[in-house]
Each structure stands twice: as C-alpha cells, then as structure tokens.
C-alpha cells in the first residue's frame, strides 16, 4: 500500500502481519472432495430453464383447462348422451336437492318444454319421485324427471325431441322384457336410450355394476311402461 495514510509504523505492521500470522492450508480431504465434485457429471445448464418452462406451461394449461373447448363426440347420439349425463350429474350434486317442480306442476312443465306427458311414472315401492323440471340440452328444450330408489341411487328420466339424425344403434340394443333400448356408458354412468314416437328418452343412473345394472333394467321397464311422452306443439 503506498498512499498518504501509510507511515513507517504501517509498513512495519503490514510486514509483521504477512510474516507472523500463521497460514492455514486446506486439508487434503477438502481438496479431494472439491476435485471429486468437479469431476462429477453436472446437470446440463439448459435443463433448469427447460424444466421451469415446462412447469409454467403445465400450470397455464391446468389454469386454462375449464375454458378450453371440450372434445365433442362425432356421433350425435353420443353428444346427446353426454349432455344427458351432465344434466344427471348436475341434478345429482345440486338439482335434486332443490326441486323446482312437484308432480302437481306437470301441466306447467308441458307448457315450458313443449313435451306432453300423457302418462307419467309417479313412483312406486322402489322408486320415489324427487323432482321434475324443464331442461335445455343440445339446443333443445326438454324435461327431466328425477327419481330416487330405495338404495339412494338417483335415476333421471330425460325426454328431448328426437332429431332426424338421432338413431338408436342396433348393435348396442339390449332386450329387456318386450323392449330393446340402447345401453350407453359415459363418465361412470349408464344410460338407457330409446325412441318413443317423436321423442328421444333417456334413463340415467350411476348403477354400473352387474347387479345394479339388472335392477336398472327393472327401473327402465317401470318407467317405460308407465310413461307416455309426446311432442305437444
């Protein structure tokens, strides 16, 4: 150091520090561990930013998932089945607990939906009527009647006007009593599908196991026999 602050005493003290203070050398094991650390294959520099970018993209996709367009099935029957199942899910979670229409209100239901129930299954020893309400599915007005069986399963009967493109697939039909409805499975639910005049009828439930399915066949018969929907206007 050569500046105005430095005097003879400073130089002497500096020399003393340099010569008298003990010098500590790094232990061999420290040197070895550092050398080993440098020899170890290192993570590529691009990996960190890549992982961060991928994580960000994944988070964005998850965030945007609810607003991304759903993959719509090409088959018109499948499209309707999905809509019907969604309606059943809604009723299962919320709608059935908030019944809007009681059996006495069926004329109003016809007025609202354009579908007339000349006869309606009002429940029996196995199924009890929970609610009935107008619905709007696949751009059509329709009606839904919800029942609950003795085991607590919600069963939704949904009627929509049958479009021309709506055809019940022959290979998926199941013989039940004297009827041959189509069976469809979607999102953990089973649906009986049949045409009755100008309307398409659906009976949806979560009774997917083999035993449940047999009982669900019975429910189908009960509803099918006792219900007669038509297009009112």
């Amino acid at each position, binding site marked *: 150091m050569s*500046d105005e602050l430095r005097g003879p005493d400073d130089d002497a003290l500096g020399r003393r520090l340099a010569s008298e203070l003990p010098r500590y050398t790094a232990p061999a094991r420290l*040197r070895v561990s550092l050398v080993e650390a440098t020899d170890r294959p290192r993570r590529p520099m691009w990996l960190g930013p890549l992982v961060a970018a991928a994580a960000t993209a994944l988070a964005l996709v998850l965030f945007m998932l609810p607003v991304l367009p759903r993959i719509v099935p090409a088959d018109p029957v499948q499209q309707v089945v999905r809509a019907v199942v969604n309606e059943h899910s809604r009723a299962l979670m919320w709608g059935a607990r908030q019944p809007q229409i009681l059996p006495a209100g069926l004329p109003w239901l016809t007025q609202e939906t354009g579908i007339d129930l000349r006869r309606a299954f009002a429940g029996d020893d196995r199924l009890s009527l929970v609610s009935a309400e107008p619905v709007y599915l696949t751009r059509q007005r329709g009606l839904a009647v919800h029942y609950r069986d003795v085991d607590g399963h919600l069963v939704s009967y949904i009627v929509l006007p049958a479009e021309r493109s709506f055809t019940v697939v022959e290979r998926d039909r199941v013989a039940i009593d004297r009827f041959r409805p189509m069976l469809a499975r979607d999102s953990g639910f089973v649906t009986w599908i049949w045409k009755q005049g100008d309307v398409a009828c659906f009976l949806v439930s979560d009774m997917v196991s083999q035993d449940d399915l047999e009982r669900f066949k019975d429910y189908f018969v009960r509803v099918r026999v006792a219900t007669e929907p038509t297009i009112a206007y």
Partner: protein
Amino acid sequence: MADADFQRQALQHLDALYNFAVYLTRNPPEADDLVQETYLRAFRFSHRFQPGTHLRAWMFQILRNTFLTFYRLRERETAIAEDGVPDWDVPMFHDTSTDEGGALEAHTDLERAMRHLPEEFRTVLLLAEVQGMPLEEVARVMACPVGTVKSRIFRAKERLRGLLKDYEKK
C-alpha cells in the same frame, strides 16, 4: 471459459481461500464448510464470471458474502456506524470465546489482536497485507470504493496497534 478450465483455475486459490475462511470463522470445520459452499456457488454461477477479470477477487467475494449471509445470522446484531464499521471494540464475530468445538486458539498477541478486530477491519488486513492483494481487488471483494478500503486499513492498523499495546502492558 470452459467449465474444466474454470474449475482448475478456481482450485488454484483453495489454500488462500481456506486461510481466509479460517480467520473469518476461527473454526477449521466451519472453514471447511464455508470453502465448500464457496466453490459450489462459484461452479454453479461460473457463467456469470467475466473472463479476463480477477478470478481470485471473485472467489474471495463469494466466500465473504457466503460468510456474511450464513454466519452473521448467528451472531448478535450490532449497531453499524456510517462507514459500515462498528465504532466500538467489541468484535463482530465469535467474540473471544474459544469454548466451541473445533475453535482455533490464538497463540500470539498478533493473532489475538486480529481476533478482536471487527470483520471489516480484519478482512481488509488479511486481503491487503497477508494475501498481498492490490487495493482495487480488495475493494471489489469488499464491494466498496478504494478510498474506503484505504481508510479501513488505516483504522484497522490503529486499532491493532492499540490492542497490541494493551497486551504488552499486561
């Protein structure tokens, strides 16, 4: 600078860094940890080092910053004067106790006096006088102007002389 080159050049300063670490921590096992952490950081951020600048100063700067980050937290808080140096004689680090495991004993008055200097004073003396670093490099390590380094060296030596005189009287 290629990774292998950088690592080889960085390892050339191991002894100097270890010596500095021992004087900062006064505890060889802690000095080991400090040096290891310093090298890990240096290797991890080697892409930030600008070739052609002083690698030694850069390594010392990492070591000191690591020391201040990790070790200062364990020490008591002290009031700092305007120039960043405590104005009283209480040492900033490790005080004078040597009862910690692995702590280094002071064998000479000079060592004991160095031990009693605040870290800012001890560091400038170690870098400038013991390591023989130019003041510009010391300033870089300390992250302060060269003038501040000169002032600290001056004050550090004054404090050191005072301590040595006290020891002689005793």
